[in-house]
Structure formats: C-alpha cells, structure tokens
C-alpha cells in the first residue's frame, strides 16, 4: 500500500484524500479497525501530528469513528462511503475537464471522445 504525496500541497489534505481512496476502494474495509496513528504515519513517512490532523478531520466528516477504548474504525455506513466515492469521482472529473478545457476541447467534443474510447474499449 503506497502513499504518493506531492510537494506543492498541504500534506494533511493529501493524506485525507488518500485515506478516502483506500476506504472507497475497500483496502480499508467498512467497520474494520484502522492502524494506529503512529503506524500510519510511519508507513506514509509523515509526521504523526500531521496524520493525527488528517484522521481527526476524517472523523469530523464521519468516515471514521473512535471507540474510546479500542481505537479508530472505518464507518459501516455504506451510504456515507458511497457519497465519499461520488465526491472523489467528481473531483477527478472536474480536474480532467479543466485539463481538456486548457487543451481547447469543448464539452461536446470531450464527451464524444470519451464515448468513442469507451466503444473501442468494449471491442
């Protein structure tokens, strides 16, 4: 499980994003226990305080919850995970659309390229 961190954005926001991806893709299964802050920080090679900040924010959003005695867990709320997944997809697509726009493609052109490619992939 790798952590790919860019240098031009705050680390905590990238950690949040990557943990969201791990939850959505099922690497961190719903209801399962999360490794400790220290373990996660070491794995991602980041400062434990930064990891702590990212986890607290995910907790505020409800994707994680803390059981006071036994640690931090991933939510079992499938709907909430679905929402997070949706949000990540939207982020990806708006980033992609930005890029296409800067290449000079309009909405309809972009859409037609996508459908052509999907058609070809089917074959």
């Amino acid at each position, binding site marked *: 499980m790798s952590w790919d*961190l860019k*240098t*031009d*954005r*705050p*680390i*905590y926001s990238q950690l949040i994003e990557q943990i969201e991806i791990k939850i959505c893709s099922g690497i961190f299964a719903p209801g399962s226990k999360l490794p400790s802050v*220290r373990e996660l*920080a*070491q794995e991602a*090679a*980041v*400062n*434990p*305080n*930064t990891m702590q900040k990212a986890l607290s924010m995910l907790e505020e959003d409800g994707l994680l919850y803390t059981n006071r005695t036994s640690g931090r867990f991933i939510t079992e709320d499938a709907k909430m995970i679905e929402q997070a997944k949706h949000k990540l997809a939207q982020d990806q697509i708006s980033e992609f659309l930005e890029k296409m726009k800067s290449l000079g493609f309009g909405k309809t052109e972009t859409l037609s390229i996508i459908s052509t490619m999907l058609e070809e992939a089917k074959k």
Partner: protein
Amino acid sequence: MSSILTCNNLSKSFGNKKALNNINLNLERGRIIGLLGPNGSGKSTFIKLCNDLLTPTSGELQIGGNAPGIETKRIVSYLPERTYLNDWMKVSEIIQMFQDFYPDFNVEKAYDMLKRLSINPSERIKTLSKGTKEKVQLILVMSREAQLYLLDEPIGGVDPAARDYILDTILGNYQENATIIISTHLISDIEQILDDIIFLQNGQVVLTKTVDEIRDENGKSVDTLFREVFKC
C-alpha cells in the same frame, strides 16, 4: 503545554562577526522542527549553544526551564555534525558506555535497530564505513528516551535508501512529548516529516511557520520556497 526551548534576544559573536543576532524562539513539546538555512547562517552555532559547547554573548537560552548545563544534558540527546566515537571500541562496548552514562538509554531499542540495519555489534568502529558510523551514532542518539533531540545534519553522509530508514527510525523512536530539531539543507528529503520550520539567514530568524501553512499559502514546497528566499 509548556515549551521545551525558549530563547530571548540570544546573540553569539565570534570577534566582530555576529553568528547569531537577537534570536527569539519558543519551541513547543511534541514537534518535529526543521532548522533550515544556507551555509554559515548560524545553524550549528545555535545547536552548539543548546548543548553548552558555546556560551551566549548576550541574551538567554533555556531548555526545560534551565540554562544549558548538566541538568539539560540529562534531557537532551545530541547528534553532532561529526563522529566522536572512539575508533578502537566495539559497537557493543559503546552501547555499554552510553548505558552507563544515560539513565534514559534503552539498550533493547539500540540492539533492535542495529539488527534492522544489519550492523554487527561485535565489530570495531574503525572497521565500519563512514555511512555505517553515522548510522551507529544516530542509533545511539535515538535510543535515548530524551525530551529534546538535537540532530545536526543527520542524513548528510548516508545513501538515499538508508536516508529513508533513518527518517523512519526518527519517526518510530521519538517519544510523543519529545521535540526533535533537525538541522539540514537536504530539505526535500525531510520536509514530509516536519511540523514546523525555522529559516535562518545571517544569524537571524527570517521565518517560522508550519510546513502545511507554507504549502497552503504559497502553493509550493518548503524546498522550493527555500530556493527562492535564499536565491544566490
């Protein structure tokens, strides 16, 4: 939380050259702090002052409420910029010596780290390569359960793979309430593990911020900002 290190108008001159000029800092516990600056900016002078190897020309410096001296050496674990270990000693003998010297020295931790880096404890220091010597020294420093770690260029002489291991060692072994100050100019290698940074230039503090603040406000890494601020 009380601060671990404070300095008020701290200055150090060598003749009429001011190595440090009116430094005011207040460093909290539980942080990893990068002390960054170009060559000759005063990084090592600052760290030497903290270790009582130099005395301030004026101003005040306190660590855990005491001026540098016997009391502070108890709680400070220091990695100097060069090796000082006796060449003829075996690694295991040096570990024994550290154990005698420092009540907070954790022997098991030391042997565990030696094993992970496949360093043979019965080898003599003089038979070790330069990089391995540096690793041994870092192991000794990080095996102490100190309140303040002062690391002067901890990753300068080792290869990138060992660098990763060393950062991992630093992250895995410091106490939750301890503060680590790392002086270096290899910023891109360490900025990911830093909470705060201090930029020194010509003996003065020109910037103190958290890494995420810098990335948020400038949209660039600490390394890039450093190259801009200290452009030659």
